[in-house]
């Protein structure tokens, strides 16, 4: 039996310990905000925060996060008013929106680590997250806005 804390709630799993966290979250725990885009750590759609770090849930097993604290988009802020979320809305970032949970989690992790990232630091830190719709200019502007206060 693996125990893991997700968005502050204790969850347990007694199935395959190698099950990717992504599918545990989506299919077993019903937290569908975290998305599947590639399954190979190539697109960032599945990004969640484990303790204080952004990780790709598609290549992280449930076992890997045993006893640790996982935050998904659903748990980032109780009312959805994390500065990154607010900035995202102010800048009208999303097109289809499918990549955005991963983008927001990545940006939130970046700002925890570096509260005032430069243009180049934003572009580098966010480049693991693909947006096929091409919202990059707005993502960059929104991260910048979140870092300077929304």
């Amino acid at each position: 039996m693996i125990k893991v804390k997700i968005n502050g709630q204790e969850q347990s799993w007694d199935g395959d310990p190698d099950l990717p966290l992504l599918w545990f979250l989506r299919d077993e725990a019903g937290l569908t905000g975290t998305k599947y885009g590639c399954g190979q750590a190539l697109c960032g759609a599945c990004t969640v925060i484990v303790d204080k770090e952004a990780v790709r849930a598609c290549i992280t097993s449930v076992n890997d996060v045993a006893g640790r604290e996982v935050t998904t988009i659903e748990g980032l802020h109780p009312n959805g008013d994390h500065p990154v979320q607010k900035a995202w809305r102010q800048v009208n970032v999303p097109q289809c929106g499918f990549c955005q949970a991963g983008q927001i989690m990545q940006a939130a992790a970046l700002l925890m680590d570096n509260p005032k990232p430069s243009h180049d630091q934003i572009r580098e830190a966010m480049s693991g997250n693909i947006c096929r719709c091409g919202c990059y200019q707005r993502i960059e502007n929104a991260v910048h806005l979140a870092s300077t206060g929304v």
Partner: protein
Amino acid sequence: MNFIDNPRKLRGFEKHIRVEKVSRRSILKGLGVTGGFVLAAPVMSRQALAYETGAGKMPHGVVVDPRVFVSVAPDGIVTIIGHRSEMGTGVRTSLPLIVAEEMEADWSRVKVQQAHGDEVKFGNQDTDGSRSTRHYLIPMRQIGASARTMLEQAAAKRWGVPATEVKAVNHEVVHSASGRKLGFGELAADAAKESVPSIEGLKLKNPKDFRYLGKGQVGIVDLHDITTGKAQYGADVRLSGMKYAVIARPPVTGGKLVKFEPDEALKIPGVEKVMQVRGWPWPSKFQPLGGVAVIARNTGAAIKGRDALKLTWDDGPNGKYDSVAYRKELEEASRKPGLVLRKEGDADAALKGADKVIVGEYYIPHLAHVSMEPPVAVADVKGDKAEIWAPVQSPGGTREDVAKTLGIPEANVTVNVTLLGGGFGRKSKCDFALEAALLSKELGAPVKVQWTREDDIHNGFLHTVSVERIEAGLDKSGKVIAWRHRSVAPSIASTFAAGTVHQAPFEIGMGLVDMPFEIANISCENPEAAAHTRIGWFRSVSNIPRAFAVQSMVGEIAQATGRDQKDMLLELIGSPRIVKPNVKDLWNYGEPQDSYPIDTARLRKVVELVAEKGEWGRKVPKGHGLGIAVHRSFVSYIATIVEVAVDDKGKLTVPRVDTAIDCGTYVNPERIASQIEGAAIMGLSLAKYGEITFKDGKVQQKNFDDFQVVRMDDSPVVTNVYIVPPGPDTPPSGVGEPGVPPFAPALINAIFAATGKRIRSLPIGKQLEA
């Protein structure tokens, strides 16, 4: 030329579609509405409107009925139906916003409800071809105006005053003479009893009174849900007792399963069942390819189970498809005469007599859509009833195809449309929903079929592969006197009819035969090309290779004659005029040429606008260069300037992009800008990296590592968008697709300016490193 006999085979491409002759009576019966009115084609009389569109020729035409689209609750909440699919363009906001504008509803008290697939009820729902605003601006205004009129009539009756004395203003009806007011909610029950006014008598708002249209102040309705993870995409649907499935499909188009061994898969924890899925022979439109499904308690287990399957396939007739050899075939075909589609003057003679002939052969390989959300669908089939939840661009077509595939009446099929995590044309094909329906029926349980990214790349409906060969003949003064353009590419029609070797009218109408240059001798030809995989619509479709070829050739002519690219471009466009190409049945994106002519004044205007705003001719640092291109597609006009920087190792970056768009009357400039920003990224992705190749019939790429797209660190640093203000009666035109085509040629022209290297084959890949 191939003609498709089944009118529904090529949904959305009306050249092939015969208008369904559904009688007005039968529609009314189907709706169970009396007093409401429903229009089948043709939708609008010329008297009623300033312009006509092709909307009425779409399957099931347009329905203009406020009772279908609008409801007002006693608490005042107005619910407006969004009947098109939201894949990122903002349409789920824009169309209901038009209704709210006309009915004087306060947007903060409006709820948008997604329509299920039902084209008899809602009219055509194919969200493709950049058509939504262009076909629905007026119908949505009429729906809003009808609802407003009914509310006003109800209030006038209540007060016993003439309806001309009352006026709806911001969610209430006001009688200014007496100062009385009634909220929409208070009038809801009475208004519902009012008869629906006739379209001809409706008074539409004066655009100067618009609160929302054309302003760009309203965010998309799903913005909060998207940023909090609550937005529901296809993959997010969960039903009780639902099983999770992935399918192993034939790796070669037209291949078949020979045998499979399920034992190892069944040992994987969580795997419950392994079963064969029915497949259809190639080509058969959107029918599933078949294969072996692994059913599990979660997607992760299903994927692991599939990896453990032992499968033997018979590759069938396309087992030798090889991209290197096929490219040679296309190139050779492009060097010989083909079916002549447009002939003006005598291009052969003029080319022979020309002082100089410039030849360009331009190649673009297959491309995959890779929408961020791979195909996925949930189905629950019980007896002769089916319910589907899926991110589909064509809910009506999906409903028809599910009914046909299961052999049940269409009335027994419900298609719920979720948000689409990107579409780009991939989700116009409902094969994934059909797979889910077939599996659910077999299993007797709800099931979700999830495509992996690898499935998406291996088994999609790819953008075609093409060689566009242009020969331009110049006289002594450097004037272009002859133009021969041969386009060779397997057609989308090959996915519908075996043996197709020529492109369909909607494909040749995308920048080949509608080429707008003022040249005396023109020949547009289409040599044969047979398909060896499933070809499908990809955002902007044939406009991508056409704009690449035509606009690169403009750069080449400028280069050969020492002219400025922009001046050369304007000279070729020529005088402001309406172009009437000598073509039988010009497709014109399904629109009448009267309302949507090929207007070179508008084409010139976007070139001039982007040149001014984008500071054409500005001094750029060493290693940088500017390129320009313009293209009319989806009846919109778009010009782009790209600035590139190429360092001494050949690394390419894009510091700046400027785009001017004339899309006629528009609804939401903020979403237009986001579409154009995104189009620049998609254009850069396909130019820099986009390539799907085949060997032994199989796609050689698998995921985002070997089918790359632009990421933030190599995206344009800044993209500026300029929208041409529309004339008072300029009809709306496309936005979702037209931004992509001019990007690649502007980029390639800029690379030439920066480096002196002319790239004629995409993707650029390592060509700049040499």
